[in-house]
């Protein structure tokens, strides 16, 4: 039933209002005297060196790609888990085959050093 999701929508609206209220309180009551020094990026009191946003190691993207792969695997687990008792042994073997294929990829990524962080 879709009506069950309406309370979540109400809660979301109220929460957004609360978050906006907190930001508004800070804006209204706090003093605001920006100077050049204060507006610099904070680097423990040193003058900032180089741009703020810079190139990131490619490992982070690798982790993101691997995450998408295995997270979808987890999502496939959820419907399987609910009907598992009805499927019985058949369901277990089916899932094992599915996971085995993905595990080959997991082992490959491991051996290739995609999970290393040096």
């Amino acid at each position, binding site marked *: 039933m879709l009506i*069950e999701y309406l309370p979540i929508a109400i809660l979301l609206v109220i929460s957004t209002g609360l978050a906006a209220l907190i930001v508004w309180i800070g804006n209204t009551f706090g*003093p605001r005297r920006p100077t050049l020094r204060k507006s610099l990026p904070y680097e423990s009191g040193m003058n900032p060196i180089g741009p703020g946003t810079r190139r990131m190691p490619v490992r982070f993207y690798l*982790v993101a790609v691997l995450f998408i792969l295995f*997270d979808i695997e987890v999502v496939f687990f*959820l419907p399987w888990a*609910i009907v598992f008792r009805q499927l019985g042994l058949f369901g277990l073997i089916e899932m094992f085959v599915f996971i085995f294929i993905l595990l080959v990829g997991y082992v490959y990524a491991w051996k290739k050093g995609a999970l290393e962080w040096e």
Partner: protein
Amino acid sequence: MDLALLLEWIIKSLVLILILLTSFAYLTFYERKALARIQVRIGPNRAGPGGWLQPVADAVKLIFKEELTPAKAYKVIFVIAPMLTLLPALIILAVVPFGSSITLFGRQVSLGITDINVGVLYIMAVASISVYGIVLAGWSSNNKYAMLGGIRSSAQMISYELALGLSIIGPILLAESMSIGEIIDAQRGIWFLFLQPVGAIIFWTATLAEVNRSPFDMPEAEQELTAGYHVEYSGMKFALFFIAEYMKMIAVSVILAALFLGGYRGPFVDQVPLLGPLYLFVKVFVLLFIMIWVRATLPRIRYDRLMAFGWKLLFPLALTNVFLTAVGIILADTYGPAFLWSIPLMSILAFLVVNYLARDRIATASAQAVSFRR
């Protein structure tokens, strides 16, 4: 639509937010007190009797603080990011019942916002939204430490989400439902903690990483990143991150209690429904203490170890745990319910085997930790 029902929902939402805000305020106080006691100090005791007004004092201080916006920050996203971090922490508990229904003003009122049939999926989805707030905060600050903190945090959170998702499968397999209410009802006889000990440990470890708690608080490592993704935030915008972090602590404790510790269930809860929230409160209180205890005891682990731990240890172990649970259920269906106890036996065995295989790594890590502490 029924107007009274709408009013009930609005009131329940307001009450939930109020409870969360109050418990957030006193969780900070509780943490400072408990940490102080562990470190043989007294902790905050000046504001009000016994320091009980400390959260109020903190709030007043933060309200009247100057809010800095870096000149080169991306202004709109800089303001939206903390709000985006707070929202999932506030709405994630919408699917968890805090007790069975009670009769109030002649109406059956269920304690809990709603109980959708894909509750676990909702929790996983909402939990991953909070990554956006942190990454956007790091990026929009235009500060290299904040950027690094945000990126680190996202990599860490998505890595541990795999183990987190897999450890939730255990209770779903046993309860045959994704609704949190039905999972709690399935624990009428026995808590899933006893049938899923390894699953509960994996869930707890992964949630510690998910909410950026020590020993996995790399995104906020003061020594190397100055404060990580929220280094440029001050005043109430900083408070939003702070609120979100502590509310997420409360939320994961409530979810762990619901999935593994029987939620609001306890003795006589069917006769006296008002006992339900009380039992839940006690369980959450104990879980939060364990979180603080972990923070006081363990040093922060190194980032490469953190990622290796998540991908090479926790993920295969969680996968094994799911399969052993499935095998145990098939055994129980074939030979009788007593064989359900093969699940904890097999999973603890697997846990010990994994520990044995990783013994060298664990030994070096703990030796290093001890030498750091001296």
